[in-house]
């Protein structure tokens, strides 16, 4: 309507910053909004778990085992009489923080190696690219099992091995972008001014890749949550009595006939959180994609 009414008004259209435009295109979809609210809620509940959870995750009640949902225990109790809702809340704390921490570590490894490969080129690039390709072409799940079985599955070990097996996508993306950017004039200008090579790379070139890294990291958290819960389900991840969604699922498996609902809750939360991270990651990718 306005276009036909006043054509010369076009240049006068309120200009918005690129950041605001990216944000608008990100926030436009209802799915993104739902996913953000769900995740925000999960993070909030995890952080304030001790104040929100009705019981302690370790309180055993031998007179109240496998109880159905009731006003005292909204989701019932497990085989040791522990409150399911409480354990889900604390389990989410573990699962989300392992996911977050391992992705943080994976980003450090992936961004550093990818940046070095893309910026230095030559044999460094071929070596790192070979490692990336090789690691992407083999099933690393067996490596995870072996390492955790032999070295113990403490939380730091768990975070470290998940990071060591999931850094490759970040490295690949960063390498690609930096290979494309390293010939740009600002790099040449910085070099002509005498800025050291590594400083150019880590202070000027690598920060340009921040949007892509954030996207890869968001999708990486989804992946890391699945890996952690699969490992915990198999008994190689977070060890009971510390609850994680994965090991709660494993414990519930034994009571699949008495109370099948026990297997529904933890898995549904894994699914929902993974779905939310994937939704947000996807929306961010679309919003930051310059081709759109």
């Amino acid at each position, binding site marked *: 309507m306005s276009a036909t009414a006043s054509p010369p008004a076009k240049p006068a259209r309120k200009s918005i910053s690129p950041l605001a435009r990216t944000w608008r295109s990100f926030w436009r979809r209802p799915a993104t909004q739902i996913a953000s609210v769900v995740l925000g809620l999960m993070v909030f509940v995890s952080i304030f778990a001790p104040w929100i959870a009705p019981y302690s995750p370790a309180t055993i009640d031998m007179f109240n085992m496998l109880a159905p949902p009731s006003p005292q225990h909204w989701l019932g109790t497990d085989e040791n009489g522990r409150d399911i809702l409480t354990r889900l809340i604390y389990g989410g704390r573990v699962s989300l923080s392992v996911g977050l921490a391992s992705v943080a570590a994976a980003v450090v490894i992936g961004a550093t190696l990818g940046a070095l490969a893309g910026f230095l080129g030559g044999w460094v690039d071929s070596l790192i690219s070979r490692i990336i390709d*090789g690691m*992407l*072409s*083999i*099933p*690393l*799940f*067996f*490596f995870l*099992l*072996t*390492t*955790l*079985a*032999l*070295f*113990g599955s403490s939380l730091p070990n768990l975070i470290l091995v998940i990071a060591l097996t999931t850094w490759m996508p970040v490295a690949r993306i960063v390498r690609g972008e930096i290979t494309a950017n390293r010939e740009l004039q600002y790099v040449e200008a910085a070099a002509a001014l005498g800025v050291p090579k590594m400083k150019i790379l880590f202070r000027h070139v690598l920060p340009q890749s921040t949007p892509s890294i954030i996207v890869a990291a968001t999708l990486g958290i*989804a992946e890391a949550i*699945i890996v952690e*819960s*699969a490992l915990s*389900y*198999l*008994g*190689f991840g977070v060890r009971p009595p510390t609850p994680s969604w994965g090991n709660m*699922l494993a414990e519930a*498996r034994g009571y*699949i*006939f008495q109370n*099948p609902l026990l*297997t*529904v809750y*933890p*898995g*549904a939360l*894994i*699914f929902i959180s*993974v*779905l939310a991270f*994937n*939704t947000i990651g*996807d929306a961010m990718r679309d919003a930051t994609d310059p081709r759109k």
Partner: protein
Amino acid sequence: MTGYILRRLGESIALILVITIFTFALISSAPGGPSILLDPNMSPEDTARLRTLYGFDRPVYEQYLLWLWQVLQGNLGFSFGVGRPVSELIASALPATLLLSGAALLVAAIIAIPLGILAAVKRNSWIDQTLTTVSFFGLSLPVFWYGLMLIILFAVILRWLPAGGMFTPGQNSIGNLLLHLILPVVALSTSIMAELVRYTRSAMIGVLRQDYVRTARAKGVAEPVVITRHAFRTAMIPVVTLLGMLIPRLVGGAAVTESVFSWPGMGRLAVSAAFNQDYPTIMGITLVISVVVVVSNLIVDLLYAKLDPRVSYS
């Protein structure tokens, strides 16, 4: 072509060697040492004898070379846990895994590729939107939970299908095997299917935009022929690449699926070997899985050359 195959074979062997060296080094540096030496009922003399017998008293690189030498002669060693040759354990587990992953890949491809094409052809229709949304959900499904839900629904509540295992005891018919195969295949193929739908869709959309497709349409070629004869073949090239990239995920997913459905394959063997710190079995599984994956990748690459006349590998 022969030169290319030889080079790829060389690279594959190098990759397998690197994987086994790495795994061997990892195992050797584990705290505590081999579980077989930790039995408190053994006298110190017996422990010493075992140590020499297995070669644990030698330097690590010598142990590795010894292992490699034995492997080249077809000997994968003796399992610590079960007391049977590793080759025997693997020979009984590998077919089960190949059957499960092969069936899952086949089912996923048969269902997902036509659906991906349909979504691309009917772009932005409700069919496309439904398929895209459903495959997005499928990508986020944790296979172990999905498997459990399938068991609860189809084995516990409806009692239509068995909850796990490969055969009902005493019934070794093909029909019984297929009945046991359904749920694990559904569980394992879903995420692969989801990925394939998305990928086929975007590959097909890219191809349908190209000039030669417009030319074919302009010449009056019927739309179904344009899609199946002209566009499909080109769109399959990136899809085949994706199949290659999915293989490691398929094998890793098979390991988890096998545990959920008590399927007697390599994944379950790997889980128990890791639990028992059964070094020879861990090494044997690592070697065999690497060979399977590397060979499948090689096949995918050759298929790629076959599909795309522009690729000649010289």
